[in-house]
């Protein structure tokens, strides 16, 4: 096929991949750092999208402001979820915590359906229909925004975890909560902040990805699965890994869909994940945990 199409497919893949990365960033925090498999992450993504929508349509605020408010509100919800569910369960078996997050996901998704209605909605964004021509490639401004925001969010999170004092406290808490408590770390606060940050990021992804598609109460399912795949494939807790994994997944899906079979697009993505994990069981950028 000709080069224009190829370049366009690569561009599509990169943007979709970046959307995955954006969703995965918050997951990396709770999953990679606190080792909590949070199935409700996708629902916070959904809430982010819906809150942006409602602030836009009901309060008439502009898109950017609505997205920012949504992120803050959902961060607050994340703190509440942590306080009610994840903090009390922190010492229980990982499967128990997983189930609680599954329950929370069901609760938010069904509550959302009840509250927001089953009808799909569309977030009006000034960038959604503005088309940019970059060379032979055509992209909407919204997609460029998704890409740029993901890069910024990712770099910020990376620097935060790696170098900030709080990041160190988060990692310590993840690896040994008792030891962390004995070192003087307020692990309750660490949990709360981590959830706030992760949920805020989830909401932001919802607000940014939202205008490229339609939103409806079950969009979270899709988001959380893609997010997990990216986190695992990148290597637990590795932000750089998530970046590469997300982009790789996006591009492979788009090329696979474009040149092999659209119906098998997802399956091709999964096949790649399987190949990656069999080749590097701990993900692309695993911090190899010694030899077992």
């Amino acid at each position, binding site marked *: *096929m*000709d080069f*224009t*199409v190829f370049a*366009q*497919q690569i561009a*599509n*893949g990169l*943007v*979709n991949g970046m959307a995955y990365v954006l969703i995965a960033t918050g997951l990396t925090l709770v999953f990679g750092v606190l080792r909590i498999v949070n199935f409700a992450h996708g629902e916070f993504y959904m809430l982010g999208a819906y809150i942006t929508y409602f602030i836009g349509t009901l309060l008439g605020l502009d898109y950017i402001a609505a997205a920012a408010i949504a992120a803050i509100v959902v961060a607050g919800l994340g703190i509440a979820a942590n306080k009610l569910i994840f903090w009390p369960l922190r010492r229980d078996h990982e499967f128990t915590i997983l189930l609680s997050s599954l329950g929370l996901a069901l609760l938010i998704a*069904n509550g959302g*359906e009840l509250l927001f*209605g*089953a*009808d*799909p*909605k*569309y977030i009006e964004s000034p960038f*959604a*229909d503005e*088309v940019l*021509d970059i060379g032979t490639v*055509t992209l*909407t401004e919204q997609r460029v925004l998704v890409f740029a925001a993901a890069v910024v969010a990712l770099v910020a999170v990376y620097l935060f975890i790696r170098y900030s004092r709080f990041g160190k406290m988060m990692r310590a808490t993840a690896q040994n909560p008792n030891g962390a408590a004995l070192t003087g770390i307020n692990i309750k606060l660490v949990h709360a902040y981590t959830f706030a940050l992760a949920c805020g990021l989830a909401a932001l992804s919802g607000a940014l990805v939202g205008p*490229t*598609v*339609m*939103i*409806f*109460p*079950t*969009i979270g399912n*899709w988001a959380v699965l893609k997010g997990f795949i990216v986190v695992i494939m990148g290597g637990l807790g590795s932000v750089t890994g998530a970046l590469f994994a997300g982009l790789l997944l996006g591009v492979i*899906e*788009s090329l696979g*869909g*474009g040149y092999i079979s*659209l*119906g098998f*697009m*997802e399956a091709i993505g999964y096949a790649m994940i399987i190949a990656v994990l069999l080749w590097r069981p701990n993900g692309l950028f695993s911090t190899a945990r010694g030899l077992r």
Partner: protein
Amino acid sequence: QQPPLRIALIGPMSGTGAFEGQLGLEGAQAMAAVINANGGIAGGRKLELLTYDDKGSPEDGVSAAKRAMEQDNVDMIVGGWFSAVALSMKEVTRDKIITVMTSSQHPKVTEEGHKYLFRLNATSAMMSEFYSKAICERIKPKSIAFINVNDDWGRLELENYTKLLTGCGIEVKGHEFYNRTDTDFTTALTKLKSLNADAIYVAAINTSQGATIYRQIKQTGYRGKVIASAGNMNPKLVELSGNSLEQVYSASPFTEDGSAPSLKPWLEQYRKSYKNEPSFIAALGAQAVQAIAFGVEAAGGDPRAYDKIAAALKSQEVPTVMGDLRFSDKGQANQAIHLVQIQKKQIVSVRD
């Protein structure tokens, strides 16, 4: 005071099809309200609708049908919004209870012709027969490409239209199938755009997928014509798609400016009760209720006289919001189909 006529309404109330299920439910309920306000049927018998969620899955559809029949002992069943559900449900209800299938277009639903089974929507074949003519004669693209949902209906659409449109000299340049779970279509649309067809035909049932496709067609920079599949145009879709549906054609048995006498009261009732705009799916719901009411009335008011009711429905014209219906011996309705177009964000019927 006679006991009410109890109708089970089985449809997707949650999950991906929840919005379509909701529209159908609203349509049926608005019609039931209209009939009840006019004193019910057969001398004062009121209609009572019981709703069941099939979640769009055959298993839940079967469970719901069993529950309706065995637990709640309903008189009639309305259901079958999705073909897969319709096909499995009919195995449970066949020959036991009057069942009115609604939007499913799968030919197999009425192929065998169970004695108590009726289906309202036109089959794929009936729709394409009409619509392809309109495309050939009115829209007249030189070449066309398809983007269809990957299920029996989507595949059937491609088959029918490829045959019919090639027949009138339109070149079919290619097609793409997308999955029912997809949310982004840029990859497929990039491929289609590169085919440089005169028109893109979109066969999408799901409202949100449809809206995303129409928007993204424009966002890829495609400048040709867009043709929407028959039977899948609704006001919500128009609202969600922004400007990208402007001037787009579709075909539908339902138009708001129809002449059926029951249409106006139903539209009023619907608008009064619900915030959605009346749509084809809602009209199917209304039609199902009307058909049942008509049958019971014609059979003398006994809701369990299934043989009589079935016979009445198959032998007489049933007046509905979309005009008078005639059912075949196998229970297939014969709907009148109209060409519609989106003009200034309104669905208007195109009459010559």
